[in-house]
């Protein structure tokens, strides 16, 4: 084994070229344009393996119109996130109010009295609640999952964009869970477990229960089929 560095000294040219490729829309999301172009686009997204044998999805008998179509979450999931963040904001507001009250009594840094504490707590609550609402809206917009031929693809994130690829061969088992709040709103969460440590990362929230169970059976079939398919 030898190890070398490609851009060791004469980097200038290399750097230019990478910069140029970057300016082209390189990170095009797989399946992002598929609404328009349908199956012709799909071939581009197939991994090189597809030439060697049929894809896992084909073996599992998954319809083509399911494949490579980016899906959004149910819109009501925004409400779920907003409720959750609002509860957090209430707690934060209460803590800030408490601290202000205590500070007002003990020191001269802030004026004593209930009204200051209420203003501070209310302000903290408002700021944090607005942040929560904005984040929920943006997060909902960023969320997308795609059932691809050989892998499940997720993208999400407001501040940090994360895209995860989960090959079906690696799926150990799939859970759907419903918290009390989710049951109230008619939502369900799907969790895909792999043997890797980032199992918890592969979570799709905000699915309707029907969609979650359809997706669960579909992914189970794909996981089983992927074992068989590459045994050929």
């Amino acid at each position, binding site marked *: 084994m*030898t190890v070398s560095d490609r851009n060791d000294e004469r980097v200038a040219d290399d750097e230019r070229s990478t*910069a140029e490729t970057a300016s082209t829309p*390189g990170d095009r999301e797989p399946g992002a344009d598929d609404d328009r172009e349908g199956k012709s686009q799909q071939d581009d997204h197939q991994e*090189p393996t597809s030439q060697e044998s049929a894809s896992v999805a084909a073996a599992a008998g998954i319809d083509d119109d399911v494949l490579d179509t980016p899906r959004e979450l149910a819109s009501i999931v925004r409400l779920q996130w907003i409720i959750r963040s609002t509860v957090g904001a209430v707690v934060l507001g209460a803590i800030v109010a408490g601290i202000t009250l205590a500070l007002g009594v003990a020191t001269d840094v802030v004026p004593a009295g209930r009204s200051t504490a209420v203003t501070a707590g209310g302000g903290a609550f408002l700021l944090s609640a607005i942040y929560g609402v904005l984040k929920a809206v943006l997060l909902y917009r960023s969320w997308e999952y795609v059932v691809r031929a050989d892998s499940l693809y997720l993208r999400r994130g407001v*501040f940090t964009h994360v895209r995860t*690829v989960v090959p079906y061969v690696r799926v150990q088992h799939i859970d759907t869970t419903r918290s009390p709040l989710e049951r109230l709103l008619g939502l369900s969460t799907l969790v895909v477990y792999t043997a*890797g*440590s980032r199992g918890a*990362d592969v979570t799709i929230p905000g699915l309707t229960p029907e969609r979650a169970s359809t997706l669960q059976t579909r992914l189970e079939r794909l996981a089983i089929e992927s074992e068989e398919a*590459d045994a050929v």
Partner: protein
Amino acid sequence: MTDGGDRSGGERLTGRAFRLHPLSIPYRVLEQGLGLAFVLLVFGAPATGMVQNTLGTTPTAVLGAALVVAVVGYGVAYYRRFEYELTADTFDIRSGVFARRIREIPLRRIQNVDISQNVVQRALGIAEVRLETAGGSTSEAHLKFVSVTRANALQREISRLSRDDEETGEPETFETLFEISDRELGLLALVSMDLRIVPALFLGASLFAPSAAAMFDAEMLLYGYQSVVGAIVGPLVTLAGIVAIGLLYGVLNATLYYGFTLRGAADELRYERGLLQKYSGTIPLSKIQSLTVEENVLARALGYASLEIETAGQSGGGDGSGGSSQSAIPLATRERVLELTNTIEPVGDVAFERPPKRARLRYVVRYAAVVAVLTGLLWGVDAVLGLPFTPWLALGALVAVPPAAHLKWRNRGYAVGENHVLTRNGFWVRQTKIVPYYRVQTAASSATVFQRRRRLATVTIDTAGARSLVGNDAKAVDVDEATAAELREAVTANLYSSLRRRRQDERRDRRRPYGDPASGE
């Protein structure tokens, strides 16, 4: 059924149940007794007095005797109720004094078999055996204790049985792959002193020493002469202390790897190490998740490196590092490490691609921001408490920012090999991770706000290796956005083609008729 005179050949190990070594009773009783004695020493005297007052002397003595009998009795009962048995394809343990537990571990799922002995155990000729599988957070089987010969026989037998049935007839031939030399051991002691402590200590000293000095300002003026000496000798002493602590740490580390030997057979690696506490373990080649070549600054300057192997098991050789990563080579020349890496995983020649240069700019900004924040903090401290120097002096650290950023950038990189993906990170401790495609679990790319500003992204390649639990995944940090997307897709695509190729090879060889090396565990 005693364990002592153990002349058992391979065939006598299977198909009958064994007990632990009889010496394990006194050892365990004493071990627990010492713990109890400690508790008694701390809480004992007043408690005994109280009990004595209420019960009288004789009942207290009876109570004490009962306690001793209970501990010894439990020890004996534990021994009598503990049985292990090696069958053709499982390792069974029947244990438990009150609550019984019967556990069967499929041999094919066993990741490592580790043997450890501390000084006392070595004198008694007993050893502790652990079997690791991928599941669970502790060792699946924990034999405390068996005779050394039995431990070695078990280790041999388990790896023989978990191999192919066709090959069981022939004994496995091991060849020594690596043996640590005295020179390497000495270097290990030198190199493994943790350099990262030093800047932290300096930072601490520079933050707190001035304010301490300010407090003693008056005296310093009076004893000017001494203070000059102190100002010179003080730091020297501190520095010497730091180096001494670091070296002590290194020497301790070196004793752990005293006599390190790595031997390899067709299907597994076996290592032995330790001066006072002896360890030996097996690493089945089919269970390897990833390899890590590690070089810290000193080692790199001297041209040395170390190699670690990650499997999916849990506790490993008990060396306190957590996670199941065994040191395959504690320290050797870089060429030698790469050569051995290649025999374990045929990586071939790879060329690392560094992040684009705009990433370096990012580190400049990041470090400059850290300096600015620190200066701001100092300014705040100055405003409130007053400092003997102007806080703007801290801005001098800006000089170090460009070289630091360059070094960070320089040591980063990734490489896409034919069968492996490699990532490299870190200046103080440079880690090169080698992940075979067929071990990839998931691939993810992420881009923070700051990364997106410069069209950069990070690709994280997750494996089932235990160390990734503590966030030690292979990461290609700050690669170009487009490259990140390509890498993410390529890694998962290569996973499929690699799996397919392996299955085909296996079909041809018919070497593992019902093995499932692809599933990760």
